[in-house]
């Protein structure tokens, strides 16, 4: 209900994530993990309906 879920990860993996996330410019290890998972999900999820996209952009002042 409040937007987050706990997942258990191997502590060695977490340590590697913690080290890499700072080097790569993430604000936190959580951000790095989220980004990695989102990239994978983007390959699997369906694309949005074209008409929905067009309607949603309607009214944005920069565009006709």
């Amino acid at each position, binding site marked *: *209900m409040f*937007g987050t879920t706990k997942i258990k990860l191997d502590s060695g993996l977490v340590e590697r994530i913690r080290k890499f996330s*700072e080097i*790569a*410019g*993430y*604000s*936190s290890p959580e*951000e*790095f993990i989220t*980004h990695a998972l989102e990239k994978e999900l983007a390959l699997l999820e369906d*694309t*949005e*309906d*074209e*008409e*929905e*996209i*067009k*309607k*949603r*952009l*309607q*009214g*944005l*002042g*920069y*565009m*006709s």
Partner: protein
Amino acid sequence: MTTTEQTTSPARVWLVLVLLAAAVGAPGVADAYIGPGAGFAVLGSFAVLFVTMILAGISILAWPFRTLWRMVRRRRRSKPLVKRTIFVGFDGQDARITERMMAEGKLPNFSRLAERGCYRRLRTTFPSITPVAWSSFSTGTNPGRHNIFDFLDRDPRTYLPRLSSAHIGSVEKFLKLGKLRIPLKKPDIRLLRKSKPWWTILGEHNIWSTVIRVPITFPPDRFYGAQLGAMCIPDLLGTQGTFMLFTTRPDDEAFQEGGVRVTLSPNGSPSTYEAKVTGPENAFFEGNPPMELPLVVDVDRAAGSARVSINGSTAEVRTGELSDWVKLDFPAIPGMKVGGLTRLMLTEVDDNVSLYMSPINIEPGKPAMPISHPSYYSSYLEKKIGPFATLGLAEDTWALNEKVTDDGTFWNQTQGIDAEREQMLDIALDTLRSGALVTVFDATDRVNHMYWRYIEDGHPAAAGIEEPAFADAIERQYIRNDEIVGRVLDRINDDDVLFVLSDHGCTSFRRGVNLNAWLLREGYLTLKEDADGSEPWLQSVDWSKTRAYAVGLVGIFLNVRGREAHGIVEPGDDTAALKAEIAGKLKGLVDAETGDVAINEAFDTDTLYRGPYKGNAPDLLMGYNHGYRISWDCASGVVAGAVFTDNVKAWSGDHIVDPRLVPGIMLCNREVSSDDPHITDMAPTVLTLFGIRPAAHMDGKPILGKESL
């Protein structure tokens, strides 16, 4: 104007109780989805209010325990150098105009602030546009680390544009009760701005922040503080602002793109007309039919006025005068309504009758989507100041572009919203005992965009307009900003730190550049056989033969194999070589018609950005010269037509240009340590002021510390 549906039959009462039980028990609070295609699926306005009240009560009762928990849990301790840090943002305030007016003595409070502390030009982001710049302000990072490069992103699977800052998903799980569908799961609504805003970091150290209308805060962040979201909160239809024009004018009369035209039909007498107001799509029913409200207009031609009745409630409107906020309650299902706010204006009432309805804003008192944190903060503000605009881009620039409204109406609308904003700032100043406060005013940016044509001789958008009444609109806005600064200066304490800043400046937009037409001409983009390129959204493009394309407002993408769905350019050396080739041709590109340089430079974003998200950026970022910007056609994905065209729309000034040409401003009541600050410096600076070491991932540097306090 409100109306309440009567539900009297036992079956309906039982249905409402069941729905209420399901709504209260279902996951998510005050979360709804508004959007074309998947409709409006909400827990219900009553349930939202009910649950919101419960949460507010729990929040108040739990406050002592949460405060104690935060104190115990706090991992890092800080020693604040100040009690309060206040940011007042004027989106789009241009450095050159500000400096000239200060020198002329027209901005005495800006001058007072500069004398007390300092004035600097503030370097902006690449690109120099609102969502990117404010995201860098918020996080202290370059776009490669916060993932916002434009208003729009493109989906590499479809090449279609999408909003870059927020994902609004659909409700996918329903409980079917006959013809009804009850949502069982909240929709996925995500902020796509990455990294971590400074107010979240302050909150981790138990320092409160109030964040009012900073762009790219929808859905709102969750932190120790309060936030009213801004760009890109949608309107009630789920768009970025769709106005309606109810009119008796025949369909074959010219009405340009943008907004929705609704026919007003005579209703039995020569002075009464009727229509339907279309609201959000209703996902409670299969097929998502739109919610509607009946509208009746009774005109008084002699008086130039009309009585507008919408679902039983009435408002008096006059020709050329914008009404106050009018509340609309769309019926979703019996016992449940969806609330919105709009403003009305008669534009003509003679042979023809036309009624303008502004985009329908989400009602702040009972918002149908998460527009604030905590969720009841917008309700709190509504109780304090009355109804206010919630739409991300609230000022209706499109209605002015389309000449449905006029300069005076747009000015009044913008000033009304500006006044609401100042009321919010006043409340926050009064209630903030310690911590940080940021309030962003949008009016300057909108006024720059829409009235720039009047401050430049020979602007094509001002052709034929003699002695415009709003020739001094931009100066008037800057003077108002100065008055706001004066009032803030009079109210802050000596030990407060005050920053006044803008995210970018503004310049002329006289000529549009259709990058896709140029790419077609140069052989980098190919159309499908028999296509003429006039279709929007790049639908005419043959991807199997296209090496580069432009989507969004700021740049060019290469059609890379393995990245784009139909990519043909090999990644690695081929991509780099093609990028260099295109950039070389665009550098110094001349508009043959005027002889002016249109593009100063095309920047390789691979070298421009640092961070894990830089791969999402356009491959080449355009640095347009003064007077030039992406054309309206190109922004909509139309390939056909000339590369260069005159811009004749009221939207006549812009800042999507070479960022080096449009810096913002920064004033502070202390001397800062940098002569050339960047907008990314703001976040590390505010952290330093509260005794927190800026995070390693931040690109900016603190410019104010102990030595200046």
